[in-house]
């Protein structure tokens, strides 16, 4: 398929964005990643990943949700595009396929 190459970290971020269902922005993705996978990533790495995903067309973003805590600055919310969702499903399927093909004897 004409799928763009997706790094392991970017894949995780994409999953998290989909998971957060419209509430995904820098801080929330970072926290979610820490919670769900135990990985403590820097906020900047997450930002980079999010913007790369956007560049590849896998997510879309919009601004909104300013708060006093943020000094009145808005958040950039990310949501998966259709293409992004498709990509996720493909990855999921591919992984499962390969997993299922592992012979039972390999499991010791």
């Amino acid at each position, binding site marked *: 398929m004409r799928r763009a190459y997706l790094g392991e970290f970017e894949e995780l971020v994409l999953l998290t964005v989909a998971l957060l269902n419209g509430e995904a922005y*820098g801080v929330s993705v970072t926290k979610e990643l820490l919670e769900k996978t135990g990985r403590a990533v*820097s906020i*900047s790495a997450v930002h980079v990943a999010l*913007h790369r995903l956007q560049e590849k067309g896998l997510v879309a973003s919009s601004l909104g949700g*300013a708060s006093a805590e*943020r000094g*009145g600055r*808005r958040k950039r919310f990310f949501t998966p595009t259709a293409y992004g969702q498709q990509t996720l499903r493909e990855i999921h399927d591919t992984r499962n396929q390969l997993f299922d093909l592992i012979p039972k004897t390999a499991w010791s």
Partner: protein
Amino acid sequence: MMHPHPEGNPLPPRWADWLLKWLSPPELLEEMQGDLHELFAERVREAGVRAARRQYWFDVLGFGRPYFLKRKPNPYPKPLHTDMLKNYFTTAWRNLTRQPGYALLNTAGLAFGLTCFLLIALYVVDELRYDAFHTHAPDLYRVGEQKTSAAGKETRVASVAFNLSAVAAPQLPGVVSSAVIMNMGRRNLANQENKNVFYVEMRTAPQSFMEMFDFPLLAGDRATALKEPFSAIITRSMARRIFGTDQVLGKTLLLERESSFRITAVLEDVPAYSHLQFELFFSQATHHSQEWFRDLRNQDWHSNSFLTYLQLKPGVQPASVASGLEKIVDGHREPALAAAGSFFLQPITDIHLRSAGIEGAEGGSITYVYVFSAVALLVLLIACLNYMNMATARAAGRAREVGVRKVVGARGSNLVTQFLTESLLVAFISLAVALVAVNLALPGFNAFTGKSLSLHPGTEPAIWAGVLAATILVGVVSGSYPAFYLSAIKPFRALKGAGYAPGGALAVRRTLVVFQFTLSIVMIAATLVTYRQMNYVRTKDLGFNQQLLVVVDINSGLVRRSFETIKNELNKLPAVNEVTVSSRVPGDWKTVPQVALRTAAGTGETKSHFIGADDRFLRTYQVELLKGRNFFAGTSDSTAVILNETAARALGITEPKDQPVDIGAISFDGNRQELAQPLKVRVVGIARDFHFQSLHEKVAPMVLAHRKNPAHYIDYFTVRLTGTQLPGTVAAMEEVLTRIDPEHLFEYHFLDQQWARFYEEDQRRERILGASALAAIVIACLGIFGLAAYVAQQRTKEIGIRKVLGADSFGIAALLSKDFIRLVLLANLFAWPVAWYATRLWLRQFAYRIEPGWALFVLAGGVALGIAVLTVGYQALKAALANPVKSLRSE
């Protein structure tokens, strides 16, 4: 976009935020910064402020990734305002052509300043680059010796013993090569072909001389020119003088007391900016086989007779070489002598300007180079200040234009660029005028300074680069203040009505005028003081009569022995009044030797100068004999001496009563030689002090001994003329001498002319100072001329009303001038202390000087005031005489 945080909440570190702003792309900044602030707030709750702040820094630094940095666009896309430049030029040009008087004044001021600056700059550059044209110049040094006499006086001489050059290169690792110049005295030189005889100085140089220095060759081989004995190198003009052509390679020269020399190289004339001037050099190899030369090599470690140059390896410290030489030489000297002398190496590029303390040194002085540079910069500064003054004064006229430009969208920086363009334009136009002026002035300037300066398309690019840089600097500096001043115009007020100008300028303008006039007054005062001092020096009673004295050199032994006959013959000439012989004469370019005097009663030595003379000396020079008696005629009185007042005082002698005095040693040029037998003399007379050196020096003790003394033989005839029938007399004198010795070279000079040469440099400086003062005040006056015109124009209506109400023209003129006159008076106040201090410093170099009285400074101030009054008064009067009907008519 930035709302303040709720009170009481801690903020993330500001510097980190600033860094974040700097690192990140603008369009992503908001969300990134917001996220960071959110995290910060959380961490404050969890871990406290300090941990939160620390973490914040880490987070921010994390954003310094290529991903973000690469994407950062140019935050302020600033297209180069090349389009606007055309407009600026057009506007500038229009401004100049629409107000030609003002434009002319400004251009004239700047052009004048630039002209003075360029002339002085050319002079200074020339002075500074003496001897820099040799390739090895950074490594070439002249060896000098610093000696401390028994009395503690230090002298520095620029020639040393012969063997320094012989051992320097072989024994010291830092020395590449050495060259010693030997002066063999004056000889007759003949050209074999046509028997023209010339009296030249015979100087020899080794082959290393050709390699160390880069005097350009016209013909011949540099590598071998001075290698062979009996070869010679000659300069182009000397060749032309002797042979009539400069194609003389291989020709023969016949030298008196030597055999013939072959010309192995022809050189270009030595440029003016080489301290070493010569027309002929003979090869030193000629004398290598001779016994006296070998003796020198073996024995001479003491003298100060040889000009020695060394070439060092690059990077070697001259001081280490000097001490190395000292060690070697001290090993060959007696301990007493060794301790008293030390060597120093002088870079050749320093010789011209920094040889001030060295005996026998000629050349310029670095102090004056500094002074003239300062003067040049000051004059230029005054011109720039003028421009500034005029431009800001006329601001009201430009206010509307600036207002419109600002409304249409010009930023401060645009306006600054515009006005700088204007001032640069004026600066370059002034440069064009200045270049013409400089070229017109150069012939006269060259004659005055004795240089050959030039500024034309062929002059070195480095100098042109400097000229350009100076012009640009002038343009930028002049335009800087007006540019900022004008761009501060508020558009609203500017467009509302006429006559608006931003405030605060009046004080600045006044300060500028005061500053200009202070400088001018200081320079005028300095000129006046210099003039007075030079006058004093010229007319001061020297203690002898320097008029109508002709000094004839004694150049041969025959003449010396036959001096009695010559004296008699000379006395027979109708135009001759008196004739005397002496070992030295006042004003001599050769230094008068010093002796050590010791009285029977006194302890220790007194240093005194020494002249051996005959019984006619006092009469010829018209020196007054105060006490005692003159010498007797003949040789019977040979142990008698006459002291001058200073010497008598130093020895404690008030009445000459044949007191015995011992003369133990005599030193020529700082080279002390103990006399085998101390000369025992008696004091028979005391003469009035007379100046035998320039008035830069105080009168020193002088002992006038009889000519028949073993220390120093006679060297000069001095003839006092009656003052009539001058032209034929010199020829007759020459004839007398040549009758005795046909081969004798007749050298003579007039004592007063020679004396005047002492002050040549001072006079030159006086003139330069005077010219600069004139320049300064001219420019300052141009300035207030323009200002006064402008002020008068502004007050046209007021003047008209005053006239209608009955004021008389003079009253009005006075009213207009009052302000300026007050400023000039204030300038006086500042100028006087500065001038007084500066002139005192200069006067200190003269042992005999005037005391600049109050009157001098008041005069300087008065001159400035007078000129200012004339300048301003003209404008004021012109305005005051205007027809009030006309001035009140315009609406």
